């Protein structure tokens, strides 16, 4: 038993320090040839070992990209873990419940209506993400018995509805790709992010993530079902509301920047569940960190695997879909 505990501890420590390592790797890799140590020396010790271009490539391009990638990955994984607990369903995440496509549609709508990426995009994205999860839940509730599968079905319906609306919006708006934003982020890409995009995500993350982490122990209780959770002193309706709104907020922020990146919210919490266990007090922060590291890692792969940059959404799907099949098999369609 103690051997198992030591192993768990080392895994946890590894997960918590992985972002630092990946951040360094991410700063070092790229098309522009440079020596990271030189850049660090000139930034921190004011030695002129690196040119100003090298310095700014690292700090203006690679650094925001890595940070944003980390925040997005973390947000998606955290909201996946949360939604799994809230809906007592290990097979959902924000993508499965339609939040991603809902938020995506909201953003497309805002871009079509107002033409520029702005705070409006975030608000629209958030509102439609929330609407999507509400719809998925409503559809899932039509048939009370096997709500696990029904909820996923509801999510599939809502997802495809909003995906269709996205394509429709793109079709009307964009015969000549005049609005490159739309195209870019439908594929899920971090290729052109800068500190401007950081503006979008830091506030939602700063609000949403602490709120979710604040309630992380109670998510355990929430996953016992409404009746038991109430008897254990949890205000289920209020807590679910708070958590779903927070999840939609951080998901919407992620979608606004990098488009609909699927699967992260599903894969990451499950890896933690398998390695560390299901206690959400540990699971939640670990999911955030591993999710962040995962996306930074995927982004590094995306720009170094081939000469052409692969959209990260494609890469996460390539990894996520087979993983989900394994998960379905392991959970036998609902229970772990």
């Amino acid at each position, binding site marked *: 038993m103690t051997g198992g505990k030591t192993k768990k501890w080392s895994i946890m420590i590894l997960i918590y320090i992985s972002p630092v390592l990946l951040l360094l790797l991410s700063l070092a890799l790229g*098309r522009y040839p440079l020596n990271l140590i030189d850049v660090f020396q000139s930034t921190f010790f004011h030695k002129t070992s690196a040119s100003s271009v090298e310095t700014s490539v690292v700090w203006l391009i690679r650094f925001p990209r890595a940070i944003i990638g980390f925040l997005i990955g973390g947000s998606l994984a955290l909201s996946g873990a949360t939604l799994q607990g809230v809906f007592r369903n290990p097979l959902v995440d924000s993508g499965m419940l339609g939040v991603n496509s809902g938020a995506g549609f909201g953003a497309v709508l805002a871009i079509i209506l107002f033409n520029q990426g702005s705070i409006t995009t975030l608000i629209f994205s958030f509102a439609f993400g929330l609407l999507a999860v509400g719809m998925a839940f409503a559809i899932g509730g039509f048939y009370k018995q096997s709500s696990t599968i029904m909820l996923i079905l509801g999510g599939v319906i809502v997802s495809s509805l909003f995906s269709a609306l996205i394509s429709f919006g793109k079709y009307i708006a964009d015969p000549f790709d*005049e609005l490159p934003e739309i195209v870019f982020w439908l594929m899920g890409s971090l290729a052109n992010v800068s500190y401007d995009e950081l503006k979008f995500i830091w506030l939602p993350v700063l609000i949403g993530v602490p709120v979710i982490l604040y309630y992380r122990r109670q998510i355990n209780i929430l996953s016992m079902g409404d009746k038991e959770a109430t008897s254990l002193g949890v205000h289920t309706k209020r807590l679910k509301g708070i958590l779903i709104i927070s999840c939609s907020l951080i998901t919407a922020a992620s979608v606004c920047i990098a488009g609909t990146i699927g699967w992260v919210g599903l894969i990451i919490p499950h890896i933690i569940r398998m390695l560390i266990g299901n206690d959400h007090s540990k699971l939640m922060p670990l999911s955030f960190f591993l999710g962040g590291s995962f996306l930074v890692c995927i982004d590094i792969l995306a720009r170094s695997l081939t000469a052409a940059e692969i959209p990260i959404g494609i890469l996460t799907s390539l990894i996520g879909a087979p993983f989900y099949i394994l998960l379905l098999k392991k959970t036998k369609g609902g229970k772990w």
Partner: protein
Amino acid sequence: MKAKLSIFILVVVMILSSCSNIVNTSDLNDENSKVIVDSMDREVRVPLEPQRVACLFTNTGHIMTMLGSGDKIVAVSNGLKRDKLLHEIAPSIKEAALVKVSGAVNFEELLKQNVDLVIMPSDMYADDALVKQFNKYKIPFIVTQFDSIETQQDLVMMLGEVFNAQEEAALYNAMYDEIRALVNDCIKDIPAEQRLRVYHALNEATNTVPLGSLPEEFMKISGGLEVSLKDQLIQDNDKYYASLEQIIAWNPEVIFCNEDGVDQYILEKDQWQMIDAVKNHRVYIMPTGISRWGHTTSIETPLAMMWVAKTLYPEACETLDLKAYTQAFYRDLFEYELTDEAYDSIIDGRGMRLNKDLSDQGE
């Protein structure tokens, strides 16, 4: 009962007659038609004088207008619905039916227009199902494609033949050659080390020029060193993208943008600030007339050539009178007298196109 039967017969007759109508229009023989070799080396039998043409490749609409057949365009793709100047020159295009949006053809709408010739881009020809439909309804179609000055000139000649306007076609090509030679004369003595590194954003900021394209060829003639040719680009269908770090590594001295707004984006975005072109405020939006001059299929490519050369090397190209050539270009080829004001707004490059929903944003 009898009334019902007669209505039924009437309907059938109407349907049949409308069908036969379409078939009749394409009933071509040696007397009422001629044979044209299109860009895919197909031999196509087309009417001697096509009267109702569906123009599904934006730039061929421009060429047709130049060849004096703009009024024969009855069906278009949405690109042709957006250029304000073109609408002034050939107002009938405004009224033409929109049968192709975002690559998808509304075939029934096309049939309704009762066209006797279709001009299409090669990617449409690659769509077997679509080609089958055209064959089934015996609608003759010409496939057009070009990726260099030579093939562009060939296309103009071919369309000149189709619309019996060989002289105008030859005039365009002559003007093309003349400008090309003039520009070449001015540029040729500039030593290699003084030539400027140029980055050309075709659409979005990172969408750029690949090897073997029209913009690549004209940039070479204009004396710009296209930086994107140095490296492997990211390909997405027929578009090519550079990564931001590549662009920074190339460090272009001048950036040209085709699209209104992209120049501001580049000038404002943090990550672009370390590039010489941005530092020295040498980010230009290219002129837009009938088409965006820097576009991969622009009919104004010869003018673009001259404009780029003058922008890059104002001293060496001092003798080139862009305004005179531009005015001559529109006057001689389009019979359109360019006012000073109109010239300025073409060169300015902004507000010359309608939004994608065809609303006018400028005013």
